[in-house]
């Protein structure tokens, strides 16, 4: 605080602190604390609020644990998000490496531009594009039928469609952090490893991936969080059998009318994502400062 007033004077400092306080207290902390409060209270008629029934309990969380459909959807969301994260990593890593290490500068900048364009198009439209492509009488089935790969059209909507759509939507959240971290690897290191007889696999597992771990951690954290919190892709590309946890939450709020239970479910999602963030950072031995860049 002293450093701030010394630099900006009392007036400006007061203004800055007010803005930051409004943001962190009013827009970040208070809503989340209120959500926790909601999650721990029962859903009551307005008349009963504040009455003897209005007590804190873990009932809403217990409901999720004991309701088999919701529990299964939650668990599926967790592992499917992990699968999205893994698939995105596998899809992105070779290109990120090529861009950062072997591509000529002009080729790299052209490819970067080509990558940035879909990134700028919003998630709903990107998912809509897959919705059209995957339609039962849509272009993908038409192509595969024409090529003779399929004998009759396939139903793409469902788990597979959601996976493809999500990987597509979050590719660049994985690609750019990895690219940035591999770019800072000195080219001579790879050459030295090769010169010493290391195989391609070993070069990547011993030299490149350890160097790029902060970028990989960042990409993984964001991809997992975005996948677990996704609503568009499961809503558009899913089938009745492939419901996502966010859809259950949405239903509590706007169809089931039980905001308390919805808040409890949202809290579980939040805790899940924070746990994954902390676990990933611990696993990769990366600090938070390295992540959000």
């Amino acid at each position, binding site marked *: 605080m002293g*450093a*701030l007033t010394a*630099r900006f004077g009392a007036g400006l400092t007061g203004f*800055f*602190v007010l*803005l*930051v306080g409004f*943001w*962190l207290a009013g*827009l*970040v902390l208070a*809503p*989340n604390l*209120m*959500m926790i409060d*909601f999650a721990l209270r029962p859903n009551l008629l307005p008349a009963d609020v504040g009455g003897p029934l209005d007590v804190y309990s873990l009932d809403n969380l217990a409901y999720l644990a004991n309701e088999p459909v919701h529990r299964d959807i939650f668990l599926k969301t967790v592992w499917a998000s992990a699968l999205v994260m893994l698939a995105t990593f596998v*899809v992105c890593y*070779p*290109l990120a490496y090529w861009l950062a290490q072997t591509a000529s500068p002009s080729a790299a900048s052209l490819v970067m*531009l*080509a*990558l*940035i*364009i*879909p990134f*700028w*198009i*919003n998630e709903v*439209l*990107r998912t*809509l*594009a897959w*919705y*059209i*492509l995957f339609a039962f*009488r*849509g*272009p993908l089935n038409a192509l595969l039928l024409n090529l003779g790969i399929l004998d009759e059209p396939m139903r793409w909507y469902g788990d597979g469609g959601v996976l493809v759509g999500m990987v*597509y939507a979050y*590719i660049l959240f994985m690609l750019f952090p990895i690219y940035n971290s591999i770019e800072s690897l000195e080219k001579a290191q790879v050459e030295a490893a090769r010169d010493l007889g290391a195989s*391609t696999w070993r070069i990547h597992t011993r030299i490149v991936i350890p160097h790029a771990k902060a970028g990989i951690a960042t990409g993984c*954290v*964001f991809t997992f*969080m975005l996948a677990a919190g*996704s*609503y*568009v892709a499961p809503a*558009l590309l899913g089938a009745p059998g492939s419901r996502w946890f966010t859809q259950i*939450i*949405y239903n509590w*709020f706007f169809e089931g009318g039980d*905001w308390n239970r919805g808040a409890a479910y949202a*809290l579980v*999602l*939040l805790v899940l*994502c*924070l746990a994954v*963030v902390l676990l990933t950072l611990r696993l990769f031995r990366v600090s938070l400062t390295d992540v*959000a*860049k």
Partner: protein
Amino acid sequence: MTSAVTLPPPATPAPTPLSARAVAAIPEILFWIYVLAFFVYLFAPLVVMSAAAFNTSRFPTVTPWLGTTTDWFAQMADDAAMWRALWTSALVALGVVAIAVPVGTAAALVLTSLHARARSVLYALMVSPLLTPGVVIGIATLVLWRQIGVGGGLLLIVLAQASFISAYVMLMVAARLQRFDRTLEEAALGLGATKLMVFRRVLLPFLKPALLAAALLATLQSVENYNTTLFVRGFETPLTVYIATKVRTGLTPAVNALALVMIAITIAGALAWEIARRLEARRGAATAGS
């Protein structure tokens, strides 16, 4: 010397047979197939979606091609609901920029002026909205404001979006601040400037490019946001919600026409952004070299 190390005899250089060269090329070929597949994956959906805007088929598709038309663009332009949605999105974006740019800038300034320990705690709190799923941000905002009788609507959309878009602004401004030479502030003070004047005449002009970029990014983030908005929208229908609703209530290629227009605008924006960035980089390199 009793070293046990024995090196293999040096390979005699012989002309590599054609088959061996073909085998050596396999990883290379596989790699290029992968790159090709990657870009097909990246662009095929966008191309199909854009092309469908010109097909006469009532459902947006390219197979079968029933004839080329531009009627869907006219339909889109006549769709009053779409224009209302666009207007809503514009209002929201304006509000978000008005909050997130000052807040994010103040946050970056506070952060860079603090000592290391206080900084890391505050930093974690500031980036936490980026690591929170969008639906959670929307829900948390919704339940807080219901307590004081404010329901979903423009205000809540703006506040919920600003809560995480401010973090993006903070990161962009902080990145630029790292390159700021603090002796410029001392120089201005030494010449008799007040702290307010130092801020206005020295620091703010330096931050201007980052502030403009942050405002642009905030606008894009706001317009394209769906997850957070969905929960706090009340009876408002911003553009993304409008498009998603169309899928259920009757998707026609008019939506594709809208998508194509948005894609065209974003591509133009992305190109302009890239060009500006490169010009800036070149100018930076030129002045550094002089």
